[in-house]
């Protein structure tokens, strides 16, 4: 899933100043799972905004709603009326949702309440960690299912570097495991250590960020116009 964290309240509050009618719009998928922008979080943020406004004597109507996803057009239908009534939407979706909400409601100001972080997993309740960098050319078969692009701080395909000490990464030796130690341990467990003897050639990064904004077209799925 895509993970995110809420922006500092002060930043959000500055963003919404001068908006008479605000819709705080939660997203019911990834950011609900990572407890950053779901129905519950939208309610909490809306409450905090109303309380702050009352304390400061600011006049602002704060409405709240949550839709299933903000990255698919059809889910916006139930809130169309609320969005049209609002002067701005404070989206609690990831960056994709914020942008798509803005596209669906062209002419409506859509503001981000979250900072989008990474593609990650829930390691335990309240702890999320990165697993995929979305590079567009998966190499997990060669590394025992541990991604060197996402989990090595330097994205080395021929690691480890000299900064790996006692299984930890020099970028943050207290908290960050060395991705290459994880790769080694996993391949050893799988009896596939010989895979590390292969030299990985320089790769083509054009399927990731280096290739510009990505787009996927499935011709067999595209509806005829």
């Amino acid at each position, binding site marked *: 899933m895509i993970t995110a964290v809420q922006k500092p*309240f002060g930043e959000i509050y500055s963003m919404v100043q001068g908006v008479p009618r605000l819709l705080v719009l939660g997203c019911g998928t990834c950011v609900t799972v990572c407890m950053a922008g779901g129905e*519950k979080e939208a309610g909490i943020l809306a409450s*905090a905004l109303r309380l*702050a406004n009352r304390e400061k004597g600011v006049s602002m109507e704060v409405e709240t709603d949550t839709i299933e996803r903000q990255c698919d057009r059809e889910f916006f239908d139930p809130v169309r009326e609320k969005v049209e009534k609002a002067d701005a939407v404070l989206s609690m979706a990831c960056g994709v949702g914020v942008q798509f909400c803005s596209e669906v409601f062209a002419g409506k100001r859509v503001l981000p309440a979250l900072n989008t972080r990474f593609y990650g997993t829930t390691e335990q309740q309240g702890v999320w960690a990165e697993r995929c960098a979305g590079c567009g050319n998966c190499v997990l078969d060669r590394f025992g299912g541990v991604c060197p692009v996402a989990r090595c701080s330097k994205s080395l395909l021929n690691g480890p570097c000299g900064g790996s000490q006692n299984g930890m990464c020099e970028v943050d030796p207290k908290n960050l495991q060395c991705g290459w130690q994880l790769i080694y341990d996993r391949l050893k467990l799988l009896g596939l250590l010989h895979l590390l003897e292969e030299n990985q050639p320089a790769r083509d990064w054009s399927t990731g960020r280096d290739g510009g904004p990505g787009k996927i077209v499935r011709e067999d799925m595209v509806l005829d116009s």
Partner: protein
Amino acid sequence: MDKRIVAFCCENSALRAAQNVEDPAVLEAVELVRLPCTGKVEIGLLLQCLERGHPGVLVLGCPVDNCKFLRGSSRARKRVDMTRKILKEAGLDEERVRMDFLSSLDAHKFQRIVAEMRARLAAGRPKDAEEAPAEEAAKGGRR
């Protein structure tokens, strides 16, 4: 009539303590909400109480090491701490929401907690010296 302080009480401890309070003025000052465990409280619920005009909110549960449901009080404490952080960031007095821990026999402590809350609310932002971190209270330090 002015809105009263809302006291979310664990039915295994704080609620029983409240039922043994003899001073009617104390009970008139609070609106008791019975919970099976303080682990049931949610941040949004605490904020909604303030939004609806209640001056303060108390979350009163079992001591952390003696919670009937083992982790309910410690979970509630984290949520109360987060609520206080949100209030502070929003420019409100975080002392409007507090958690305290007491046993079913602590009627006197219940009275004192309510009296202290009323005094804090009447005085506005309390002095630093009067602040007692929830963690300290959780260990039963404030008798």
